[in-house]
């Protein structure tokens, strides 16, 4: 067969079910591609070829025997390396956890395995899912497939990179201040941060308990909905897990946007922070397109982006410091420079600082709920700039915080990033869709309409397609 590099979950699943494609054939082809290409992109910390082939053979035998488990059966996927897989190290891309063997599967791993997924390996991240691209860690940072000299976003960098490079059709990321949506923006793929509590965090190394989310990353909208279907649901062993029914995320995918009310949060990327001109133009073009597709477009206002950033950063710094305090005191030299600096930010916070932020969070959440009252979904920026060079410390420092993502970690609302075209440099542009709590299906419906109308997700990096 020809190389199935950019076969999506939906397409591969149909072929596998019809026995026109073998899970072993698909897995073998992707492992060969990883072996050939990943030295340029560093998406993987640990590929797992033997394990993957064993699981793929089992899937093939089950399907041949008529025991098809569902749409994820035989589908290769990969995990950000802060997510536990029993018997394998969870390193968090850090020297501190290089030998940290997981004793059980994370809840999301268990769900993907039960659905028949084929784990290809563990993926690069920023150290402990914070910091930035670092060259002083045991593994190199992932690089952007659209231009390997550029930053791929993070912290779920390996997830975004591997998808854009055609190394796998599905991955999980985590998102505390935007870490699913940032690599989705910079790598030109789909990243969903579901509602807080929608997906279990059990077995995922924490960054900040009350802001942490796990979510699917894919190349297409339909694939993303399919993967969320597998991992969503109540987990009584995660104290923040929500006991809310899980709808059929594919049911309304093709219903279009006619008659929907889409609120544009324009002040996030114009007056709060001035976005890059090409990025801003792409978002405005998307608003125009939604209008032409029959949606009612109106502008809505939330509190300033800086308020959400301040609230979210104080909470993140305090909660992360609580996790890392002992290591920062006993083994500070074992962190990379970027991770250490970000984590030390919590050292000087008082209990009152943290609690004021947690109290303020409710005010911000109520303000967002009021702003969303008259709309079905909101449109705004994700990243305010295309990716900068990975070795340009000044550009990284200047652009890293220029984002409109952390607002929805603070409110807990679902938020999805989708490609919105390309800059003159050839690097991806993006937009963010934000929904009411637990209304992920609505985000998928709007994203699917945009994807169908624009075709941006059909493009792949030159030389890799």
């Amino acid at each position, binding site marked *: 067969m020809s190389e199935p590099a950019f076969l999506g979950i939906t397409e591969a699943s149909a072929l596998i079910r019809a026995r026109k494609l073998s899970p072993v054939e698909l897995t073998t082809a992707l492992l060969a591609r990883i072996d050939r290409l990943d030295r340029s992109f560093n998406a993987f910390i640990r590929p797992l070829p033997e394990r993957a082939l064993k699981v793929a053979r089992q899937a093939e035998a089950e399907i041949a025997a008529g025991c098809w488990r569902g749409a994820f059966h035989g589908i290769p996927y990969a995990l950000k390396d802060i997510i536990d897989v029993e018997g394998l190290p969870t390193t968090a891309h850090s020297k501190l956890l290089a030998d940290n063997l997981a004793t059980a599967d994370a809840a999301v791993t268990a769900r993907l395995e039960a659905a028949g997924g084929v784990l290809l390996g563990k993926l690069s991240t920023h150290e402990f899912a914070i910091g930035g691209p670092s060259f002083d860690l045991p593994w190199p940072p992932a690089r952007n497939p659209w231009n390997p000299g550029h930053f791929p976003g993070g912290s779920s960098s390996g997830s975004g990179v591997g998808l854009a490079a055609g190394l796998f059709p599905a991955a999980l990321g985590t998102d505390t201040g935007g870490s699913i949506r940032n690599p989705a923006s910079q790598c030109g793929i789909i990243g969903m941060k579901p*509602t*807080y*509590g929608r997906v279990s965090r059990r077995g995922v190394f924490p960054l900040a*308990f*009350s802001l942490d989310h796990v979510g699917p990353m894919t190349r297409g909208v339909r694939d993303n909905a399919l993967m969320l279907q597998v991992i969503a649901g109540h987990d009584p062993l995660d*104290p*923040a897990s*929500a006991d*809310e029914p899980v709808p059929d995320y594919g049911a309304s995918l093709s219903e279009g946007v006619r008659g929907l009310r889409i609120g544009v949060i324009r002040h996030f990327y114009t007056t709060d922070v001035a976005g890059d001109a090409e990025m801003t133009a792409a978002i405005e073009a998307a608003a125009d397109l939604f209008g032409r597709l029959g949606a009612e477009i109106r502008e809505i206002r939330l509190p300033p982006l*800086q*308020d959400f*950033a*301040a*609230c979210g*950063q*104080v909470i993140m*710094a305090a909660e992360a410091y609580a996790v890392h*305090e002992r290591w*920062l*005191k*006993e*083994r*500070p*030299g074992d962190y990379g*420079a970027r991770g*250490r*600096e*970000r984590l*030390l*930010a*919590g*050292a*000087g*916070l008082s209990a009152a*600082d943290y*609690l*004021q*932020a*947690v*109290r*303020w*969070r*409710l*005010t911000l*959440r109520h303000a967002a*709920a009021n702003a969303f009252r008259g709309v079905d979904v909101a449109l705004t920026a994700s990243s305010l700039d295309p990716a900068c060079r990975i070795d340009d410390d000044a550009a990284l420092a200047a652009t890293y915080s220029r984002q409109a993502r952390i607002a929805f970690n603070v*409110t*807990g*609302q679902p938020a999805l990033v989708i490609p919105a075209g390309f800059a003159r440099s050839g690097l991806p542009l993006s937009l963010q869709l934000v929904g*009411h*709590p*637990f*209304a992920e299906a609505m985000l998928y419906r709007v994203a699917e309409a945009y994807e169908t109308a624009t075709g941006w997700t059909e493009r792949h990096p030159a030389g890799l397609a």
Partner: protein
Amino acid sequence: MTELRDLARALGLDRLSNEHLAQLARALETMERHVARLPRDLPPAQEMALIFRARAADA
């Protein structure tokens, strides 16, 4: 640097090198900007949320 080292010691961070202390200084400065934005006049009865749960009823 002596003042910063004293601060670090007071925080229990007495194994930081000079490079680490410079990072601590930058980190604290960045966080100060966020802390300065926190409201200090919230109503006394306004509650906090230790574990935040969004509810479908908010939709």
